[in-house]
């Protein structure tokens, strides 16, 4: 099927442009640094009692959540900057002329690009995520309670952003699509924090900002899913015990995203991809 041909072309392009090597080196450096950091913390903590074991677990968990948050940021930016030039770049350079003159439906071309970028980003998320978790486990003996759903939510967050960037690139230049994608991501993150502060202060008007931003761009809501599944039981109990105040802190999640919200996220991706297809079909080449 043509979409898979285009997807394979996308992955091949990334390999030939040394994107894999770059990501591998960056990931190796990041994992090495965090491994060193965790080792330092491990060595600084007193060994022995059950209480100190629980404290160690809480410390490792919070550190891991922080590291994962930084990684999610890098993943989000990578998704935007890989997706933004994929279509816009080919349109601007003229490479798309010869391709789209072939018996290729524009929907197949765009979905193929989407699948290819998703494969790249998912591969990066899973590879780097597993590498980090394995290293943390080897060094500290700590493993988060639900790593698979956590990585799944990371992938979902990246999928939202790459879909947005791809949609923007059907009409805007590569650089403009990338900048707008990053800006919207940043605004959504700030919206989530503001909304959390609203919940903590019991201010419905402010908390609504977070609700609306999580609907308009679901990245912050999906990040809460990552955080939730990285929280061991003691940390979860602490987050839940803190009550509404915990909502203000972007690295805690007292509960996972609800099923209706996840359905909204899936629908959001389908809707934006659909808009991208409509936009691209009408695009003058």
């Amino acid at each position, binding site marked *: 099927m043509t979409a898979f041909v285009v997807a394979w072309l996308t992955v091949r392009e990334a390999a030939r442009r040394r994107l894999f090597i770059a990501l591998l080196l960056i990931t190796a450096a990041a994992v090495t640094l965090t491994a060193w950091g965790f080792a330092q913390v491990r060595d600084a903590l007193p060994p022995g009692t059950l209480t100190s074991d629980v404290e160690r677990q809480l410390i490792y968990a919070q550190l891991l959540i922080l590291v994962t948050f930084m990684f999610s940021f890098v993943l989000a930016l990578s998704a935007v900057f890989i997706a933004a030039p994929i279509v816009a770049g080919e349109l601007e350079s003229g*490479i798309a*002329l*010869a391709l789209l*003159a072939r018996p290729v439906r524009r929907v197949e071309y765009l979905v193929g690009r989407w699948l290819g970028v998703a494969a790249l980003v998912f591969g990066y998320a899973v590879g780097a995520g597993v590498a980090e978790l394995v290293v943390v486990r080897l060094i500290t003996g700590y493993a988060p309670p639900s790593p698979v759903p956590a990585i799944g939510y990371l992938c979902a967050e990246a999928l939202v952003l790459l879909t947005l960037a791809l949609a923007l690139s059907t009409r805007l230049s590569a650089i403009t699509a990338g900048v707008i994608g990053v800006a919207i991501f940043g605004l959504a993150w700030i919206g989530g924090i503001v909304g959390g502060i609203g919940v903590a202060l019991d201010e419905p008007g402010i908390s609504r900002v977070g609700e609306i931003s999580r609907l308009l761009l679901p990245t912050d809501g999906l990040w809460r899913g990552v955080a939730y599944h990285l929280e061991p039981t003691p940390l979860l109990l602490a987050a839940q015990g803190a009550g509404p105040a915990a909502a203000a802190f972007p690295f805690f999640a007292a509960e996972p995203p609800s099923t209706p919200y996840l359905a909204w996220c899936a629908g959001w991706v389908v809707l934006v991809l659909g808009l991208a297809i409509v936009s691209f*079909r009408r695009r*003058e080449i």
Partner: protein
Amino acid sequence: MTGTSVGSKDPDRPSAPQASPGGDPSAIETRGLVKRYGRTVALDGLTMSVPRGEVFGFLGPNGAGKTTAIKVLLGLTAPTSGGAWVLGRPAGDLVARRRTGYLPEMFRYQAWLTGREVLGVHCRLIGLPRSEWDSEIRATLEGAGIADRGGDRVAGYSKGMQQRLGLAVALLGRPDVIFLDEPTSALDPVGRLEMRPILRALRDRGATVFLNSHMLSEVEQVCDRVAILERGRVAFMGPLAELLEERLVRLRMTGLGDTARAILGRFGRVAEESGWIEVRGCDPARIPDLVAELVAAGARVHAVEPRQTSLEERFRALVAGGDR
């Protein structure tokens, strides 16, 4: 009567497919094709028909709408109104595109792939059987003159080699219609000479070549028929021989008075160019009579040069205003 027509903004879904007018489908047909970009009119009722199995020259000054017409025919751009068909199917139809090759004016291919890999991608997009890829890729690379560079990445190709690769891409799968948009713009004179037998061979096997070119000397050598586009409309369309059949005689003269000018006007259309008097449409058999009458009227005739009009001269005469 519609092919790709009013209201159809989706190049992948042309309006209801209909047979092109006139029964047996031409290779290319347009009727009243209009394309506007805002207030700019790129095509203003373009109507033309290109039979199968010929090399068709599509000429015009910059901004005449040539590339726009090609993009409409390939479904890359939707027209504002009017109809367009390729091989009897609405322009942009996937079946027609499967039998069409295209070398864009802006020829760019994936720099990170080798020449063979680029052709492999297009083999897959055309839907060629896997068993035919190797022979097809080899044949088109050889035909384009870059067989020895097929294993190199496109990033290392010169501009001329990229254009040759583009030609190979356009010829993959033995298409029935080949759109070539300025196919020799980056080639050296030897490369341009090599293009001529390729185009003739395509015609000889029954393919239709739609050649958009500024290289009028090249068009003169290979085209069977031409259309000259001016401001989005056809200013001339017909056999090349018909366009060039006009004779003219050039005279270098002094002592040209009113009587002599009147005599010149009786023999054809008169113009002055770089110190020469040109008389267009003058029957070569009457040139001696013309000279005799001019001399009798007191003019001094220093040189007489009978000529057949070149394509460039006819192009300039037909097109008003030159580049925009």
